[in-house]
């Protein structure tokens, strides 16, 4: 299920290709980005790019690229970029032996929060090991950790955008988790009074077919913790459907307790 997944480039491997990571600090003048793109595309094929603004008003363009000519050097690319008034500074890093790694960035920031990136399967295997080592206690530990994280994340969201907006825009905010690769969440009210049903398509926790776990206890806890922080009361959380039990998607019932 790779449709809809955003491709990012902390690393790229293309044997036999000459690879460059181009990082340009752009002025805030309109059209800066397009003028840089017009320049570099004469020399390189851009594979993946990203741009973001900094607090000082400047913007950063970061792009992984393949050189159109094997004789092209990083200095030539840098000189070309700096010939534009749109560029404040430019750095060009060359890959080695078909391998290009982002050596410029040191992590991710969403809002004011730092994020890390890890393989989905890596985290799933951590959950598998916790469950295997600690048995049913491991499952409850995963629930507790999920609940603590769900509460904390929701509290942070409430702090950033306000409690009313979090409650009113829950459908949209669920897509925030989806965008991070947790699964595609769809929440609806019911069946019990003040309760919710949350369907999770492509739930990350049960994404490994060979997992020995029997359910998504972390996600179950996360949803309960989020509901508690958002609505100020405890919620019981039950997973009624799970891919690990043959369902197409996971489903959770959240009921005020």
């Amino acid at each position, binding site marked *: 299920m790779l449709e809809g997944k955003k491709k990012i480039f902390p690393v790229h491997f293309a044997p036999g290709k000459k690879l460059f990571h181009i990082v340009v600090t752009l002025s805030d003048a309109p059209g800066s980005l397009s003028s840089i793109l017009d320049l570099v595309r004469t020399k390189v094929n851009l594979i993946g790019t990203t741009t973001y603004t900094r607090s000082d008003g400047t913007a950063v363009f970061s792009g992984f690229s393949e050189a159109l000519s094997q004789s092209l050097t990083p200095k030539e690319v840098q000189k070309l970029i700096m010939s534009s008034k749109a560029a404040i500074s430019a750095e060009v890093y060359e890959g080695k032996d078909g391998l290009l790694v982002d050596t410029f960035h040191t992590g991710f920031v969403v809002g004011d929060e730092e994020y890390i990136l890890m393989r989905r399967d890596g985290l799933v295997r951590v959950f598998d090991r916790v469950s295997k*080592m*600690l*048995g*049913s*206690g*491991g*499952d*409850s*530990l995963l*629930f*507790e950790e999920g*609940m603590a994280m769900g509460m904390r994340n929701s509290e942070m969201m409430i702090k950033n955008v306000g409690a009313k907006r979090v409650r009113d825009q829950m459908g949209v905010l669920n897509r925030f988790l989806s965008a991070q690769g947790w699964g595609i969440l769809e929440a609806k009210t019911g069946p019990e009074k003040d309760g919710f049903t949350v369907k999770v398509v492509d739930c990350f926790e049960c994404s490994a077919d060979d997992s020995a776990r029997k359910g998504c*206890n972390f996600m*179950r*806890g996360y949803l309960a913790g989020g509901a508690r922080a958002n609505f100020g009361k405890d919620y*019981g*959380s*039950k997973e009624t459907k799970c891919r690990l039990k043959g369902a197409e998607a996971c489903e959770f019932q959240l009921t005020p307790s």
Partner: protein
Amino acid sequence: MRIWRILVAVVLQAAILISRGSIPAFLAVIPAASVALFLETRGDFESMASEMNRKGVKAHAPAAIVGKSGVRHEFAFAVIPETGKTKVVVDTELSVKEVDEMKVLKFYVKVFDVSPEKAILCVCPKLGARAATLAKEYGITVLEDDVPRKLIPMAEDAVNEFVGSGGS
């Protein structure tokens, strides 16, 4: 019933390995003996629960308890009064060598979720030094003996003492 099937499977597997010459006969006895020991201990806890029930104490062996997290945990023995709040849980760890801290941790995370008034871990032969420190830190009562069957009366005494004293 499931346990008996496991025992039969272990014995059959051992027989196959012996017939193939993969392992000496005396080594094959070890897993079969472990399962038999486990079954015997389990049976003893069932007798202990029956005895306590006759005395009016709501005891279960084995006991399946759903914790705060909604996860279902199994214990060798538990006392759960009518109120539904678990009073005592007992588990066993039988090993041929000293029992390590992971087993204590495994018991503790179940206990944490169920929140009984008292948690007893019966260990044969004994806990390792780090495991013992951990058990003490977690407030787990540890009963140790080289002979697994002796752990049952020890557990019974500890449970009776606690229940008789009115709990915590």
